[in-house]
């Protein structure tokens, strides 16, 4: 960046803010790689869609955990609601997937909005317990209401129609992958612009220091309520994507394990980085695939160990590691910086 022209154009802080909004080269490369996956790995597209869906789900958690600092142990509640909504919707005979996603997002969002009043009341510990309680409660409902949800056997016989009546899902997951990629990208662009806008900055200031945030006039409660709702909407859509691409809903969409796994995914990738969720999902699912092929039973052991080590030593995740590498590289070549 050229310092001289910068100082002529605008004050430094404006330039920094503008730089936040601009799409970086690595960001564009990231999405191009995802497009390239479609052509380069045609046999692994189902797995790649799983990674994207988990990444999108992690992005929704990042909104409330990374940006707003709300601790939750029950985010799977919204994922599960979206998954079951999309599944049950096709049972009623309405099979168009794209609008199914919207319905699922709306249902999860409505539930998120209502539960935000319970969750946001307390401090960390009671938030933890209430989110945990809501998650377990929904699991129990899905478990007991076997007539509707199929109970532990899961919801079977879901027939998903063509996207917009044009693109049918195929056996190899080609359509599924593109469909998931497009939805993820659109939601990502929305989240990205929200987080680079003053809105995102106000969330950060709430996380960093509530008292000062109040002092500069940020409506804390309203901000937290609507980011919680938005996060629920995105989690619901991620759940619906899983249902539509796998044509099955397992009861473990509501499981505590899923909420805990998601925290790990985000932690591995790095919180409040936007891309952390996707990167973490890729690392997590690939590691799971590899380690459970060695020994399925003890995957939990590695998972726990990974969790302990990342919280203890690698607090900033993969994205944080990449950033400090970038900084190191920049310091090594000072000539290019100025």
């Amino acid at each position: 960046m050229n310092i001289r022209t910068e100082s002529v154009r605008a004050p430094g802080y404006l330039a920094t803010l503008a730089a936040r909004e601009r799409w970086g080269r690595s960001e564009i490369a990231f999405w191009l790689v995802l497009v390239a996956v479609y052509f380069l790995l045609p046999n692994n597209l189902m797995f790649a869609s799983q990674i994207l869906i988990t990444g999108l789900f992690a992005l929704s958690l990042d909104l409330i955990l990374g940006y707003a600092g709300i601790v939750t142990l029950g985010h799977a509640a919204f994922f599960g609601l979206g998954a079951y909504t999309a599944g049950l919707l096709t049972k009623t005979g309405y099979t168009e997937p794209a609008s199914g996603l919207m319905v699922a997002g709306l249902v999860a969002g409505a539930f998120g909005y209502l539960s935000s009043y319970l969750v946001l009341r307390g401090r960390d510990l009671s938030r933890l317990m209430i989110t945990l309680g809501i998650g377990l409660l929904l699991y129990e409902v899905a478990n007991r209401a076997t007539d509707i949800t199929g109970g532990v056997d899961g919801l079977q016989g879901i027939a998903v129609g063509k996207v917009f009546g044009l693109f049918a899902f195929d056996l190899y997951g080609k359509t599924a992958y593109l469909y998931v990629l497009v939805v993820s990208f659109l939601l990502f662009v929305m989240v990205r612009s929200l987080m680079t806008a003053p809105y995102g900055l106000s969330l950060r200031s709430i996380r960093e220091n509530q008292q000062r945030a109040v002092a500069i006039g940020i409506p804390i409660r309203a901000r937290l309520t609507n980011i919680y709702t938005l996060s629920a909407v995105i989690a619901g859509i991620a759940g619906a994507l899983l249902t539509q691409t796998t044509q099955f809903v397992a009861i473990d969409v509501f499981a505590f394990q899923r909420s805990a796994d998601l925290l790990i995914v985000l932690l591995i990738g790095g919180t409040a980085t936007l891309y952390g969720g996707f990167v973490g999902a890729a690392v997590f699912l690939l590691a799971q695939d590899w380690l459970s092929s060695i020994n399925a039973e003890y995957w939990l052991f590695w998972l726990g160990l990974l969790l302990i080590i990342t919280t203890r030593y690698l607090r900033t995740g993969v994205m944080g590691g990449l950033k400090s590498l970038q900084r190191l590289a920049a310091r090594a070549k000072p000539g290019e910086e100025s």
Partner: protein
Amino acid sequence: MLNFLGLLFDGLAYGTLLFLISVGLSVTLGLMGFVNLAHGVFAMLGGYLLVTLMGRLGFGFLTALPLIFVAVALISLVLERSLYRPFYKKTHLEQVLLTVGIIFVATAGATYFWGPGQQPIEIPVWMKGQLNLAGVDLSRYRLFLMAVGTAITLLLVFGLERTRFGARVRASVERQRTAESMGIHVERVFQITFALGSGLAGLGGALGVDVLGLDPYFPLKYLVYFLLIVVVGGPGSVIGTLSAALLLGVADTAGKYYIPSTGAFVIYVAMIVLLLLFPQGLLGRRKEI
């Protein structure tokens, strides 16, 4: 009516177990504000130690119990030193992640050493069967549980109210900064209470094998119960924890008996409602965590 009395009795015995396990969590949470979701791991460890000591090594039931208390307390000291200590000043989120990690490792470890199934336990003959008291059949084992629970509660209350160490603990819970400035080594106090609390959890887990069951998912299965008891009872309060545990024990037993179809539903709803109604705990301690 008799049926109801029997139910009440079972519920109280169940509550006593829950109390034994969660009282340690209550004190450590009140003292350090440390969210230790892995507290149930110590209870599970106690259970597995009992199974091993009695089944494989041929120890008697009553000799095994104190051994388990000491062993679990020592193991928890090692864990406190190596894993927990760096996290005291960190955020609750990091504490949660760390302790969830510990639960996962413990669950996988238990599966590795003892297998995924429920563990059977052979309680001594003299504790089996029923005792008829005024027309109500009472299980001898549950009577024994309640006796142990009562004795430990009295010990704890006496220890906290009447000894110098107890005074230090109370002072540290009440106001950590002031306690430190009075020359109390709060970290040492915490370390000792952590070990004692974990030892009690181990004891509770061992006593509970027959009542609560024992499998590698024990720490997750009962996590909600422990947390609920601690938060409702008010962190750091022994009597609060006891009343919350007994209440929960009776409510859960009655719920499972009268409306079995709802399963764990009642307990989750109770948790959310109680948290909303009493954000400060039943006894209203002002400690924000």
